[in-house]
């Protein structure tokens, strides 16, 4: 197993060892343009990110809510392509040794060439790749390529995934498991799904990998709630990407808003919390 030395796994474990949670903010590469998104990525690192999740813009992203759809549209309008997106990651790695996970849709991987995609990802300094619309049943080619090139294949797990499915996901996954904090698409929510704690407990029974909660973490309060529910860290997308959209006319204000938002989220994610109480719910129960 290579997962033990994956940089993301190590970064999350280091936080957890100190009683803290990991903070993994998300940006769409090339939003609002190539240069600015590189500056934004660096601002996220300075704000306390333990790793970055970086999205490849896609014309038809059905797992994404409106905030990230708009970001994809802006990035595509500004000319981003997968080869350019890899260039940005490479440029970022030259100045900031930050672990990077990619979020992509499968058609971009297919058209790049599955093996070539993971080879290029590894060369650019990518640690992990989540293909949002690639379930484990169809992931054989991608997982083989990922492992060949030393990139961790990441999978989504939801509260609706029954234990047998979680086992299947765990058998393929490396790096971390992306624990869906809500059943739905990306976008900020005011409250954490009440089923998250039980879902995380079931995932924990299936895997030793870190569990990073994402989708719907709207702000520091939800980040803290996800930690209390048992997540090893949080992934936050729309709440950060929204700051880009809010300041399209003013780059310095955009960068500062992204930095400040990320810093507040990092504080919440990193705050030490009491050890989690045992959930009263039996770990095998499936709410459905």
């Amino acid at each position: 197993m290579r997962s033990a030395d994956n940089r993301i796994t190590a970064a999350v474990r280091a936080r957890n060892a100190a009683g803290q949670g990991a903070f993994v903010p998300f940006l769409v590469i090339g939003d609002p343009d190539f240069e600015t998104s590189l500056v934004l990525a660096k601002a996220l690192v300075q704000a306390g990110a333990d790793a970055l999740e970086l999205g490849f813009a896609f014309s038809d992203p059905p797992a994404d809510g409106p905030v990230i759809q708009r970001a994809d549209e802006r990035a595509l309008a500004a000319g981003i392509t997968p080869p350019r997106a890899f260039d940005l990651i490479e440029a970022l790695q030259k100045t900031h040794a930050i672990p990077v996970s990619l979020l992509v849709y499968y058609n971009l991987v297919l058209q790049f060439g599955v093996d070539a995609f993971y080879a290029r990802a590894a060369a650019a300094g990518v640690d992990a790749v989540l293909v949002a619309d690639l379930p484990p049943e169809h992931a054989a080619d991608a997982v083989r390529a990922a492992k060949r090139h030393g990139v961790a294949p990441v999978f989504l797990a939801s509260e609706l995934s029954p234990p047998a499915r979680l086992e299947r996901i765990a058998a393929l996954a490396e790096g971390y498991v992306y624990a869906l904090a809500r059943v739905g698409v990306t976008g900020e929510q005011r409250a954490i799904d009440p089923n998250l704690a039980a879902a995380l407990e079931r995932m924990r029974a299936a895997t030793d990998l870190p569990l990073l909660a994402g989708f719907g973490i709207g702000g520091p309060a939800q980040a803290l709630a996800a930690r209390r529910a048992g997540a090893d860290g949080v992934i936050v997308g729309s709440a950060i990407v929204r700051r880009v959209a809010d300041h399209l006319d003013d780059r310095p204000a955009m960068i500062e808003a992204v930095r400040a938002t990320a810093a507040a989220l990092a504080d919440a994610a990193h705050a030490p919390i009491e050890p989690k109480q045992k959930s009263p719910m039996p770990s095998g129960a499936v709410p459905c």
Partner: protein
Amino acid sequence: MRHTGTFGRFGGFYVAEPLIPALEELESAWIEARDDPEFAGALAGLLRDYAGRPTPLYRSPALSEELGCAVYLKREDLLHGGAHKTNNTLGQGLLAARMGKTRLIAETGAGQHGVATAMIGARLGLDVKIFMGSLDVARQAPNVQRMKLFGAEVIPIDNGSGSLKDAINEAMRYWTEHIRDTFYVFGTAAGPHPYPSIVRDFQRVIGEEIHAQLHAAHGRGPTAVIACVGGGSNAIGAFARFIDEDTALIGVEPGGHGVDTGKHGATLGAGRAGCLHGSISYVLQDAHGQIHEAHSISAGLDYPGVGPEHAHLMASGRAEYISATDDEALDAFAWLSRREGILPALESSHAIAGARRIADRFGPDDVVVINLSGRGDKDLAHAMAALDAREAAR
């Protein structure tokens, strides 16, 4: 999932994790319903008494003369709702009710599938939401009015290009958010497994009737079946019965301004294999995999993807896919109206145009069936304006 839903190297279920349990639930319900005589009886009753099946198989003198052989039209235009879409929505609607779902959602382009979904929603007392690109809402006002009369909520989609593919994306998002009580009535033989198989099974009645009616009328099966292909539901329904026989299967894609102009919807003719809306099939896309807009005079064929079974039928050489341009379809629309007093949908006009284009292939012993998938009343304003503009340009 009990099956992977693959057709050769195409198909599958490429969706995010939250949708998997919903697709599994749907697959199980469909497999059980298929084998349940009570479900089959209820569907057959609705198809007969509510929708008007069987639809006639009509021998067209004008087309027979034009192609130099016996040509029959399968009159899906006479089905309740005005198109073959009703076959599928009655089936999926009954499946939804059987699964205890209380809300139907659907995407629609030209509005025919939206109307057919709103219809069964009204009939079964289910809440209906229809996602429709805002451009299409403007282009297809009569169908929007029909959906609203049937009690459906029509949600205009401004995302992306505001057309059918964006409506599908939005319906998938809504479904992801509401999977516990919502049934997604997918309109064409595309999307993630099990939809391509479910839609084919519910549309298969078209080919079954063609087979029986042609044997009764002509004492033999067809030598060729011709149908238009957008996503491909009417075509797969017409083809399915004949895949294991030696009937020629010919799909006609929308050639738009011409397949070499880039403004068309000929996904099989000019696309590449890719992943869109939950399955691997042919896709109109750029070199990096971003999805292109399709173009067709017919809103119902205006789709940059195509059902995975068609991709397999083409790749394996079992079916052939040709195209007809906007102009050729308009000609066929006017020609059939004038010669037969039958007003075909612009979608179905592509099938007529495709048949005319390859007329020299047929000899006197051939028996050709063209699936007339829908009626053209919905297209009147749009088609008349296009015909007038063409006249003025001459």
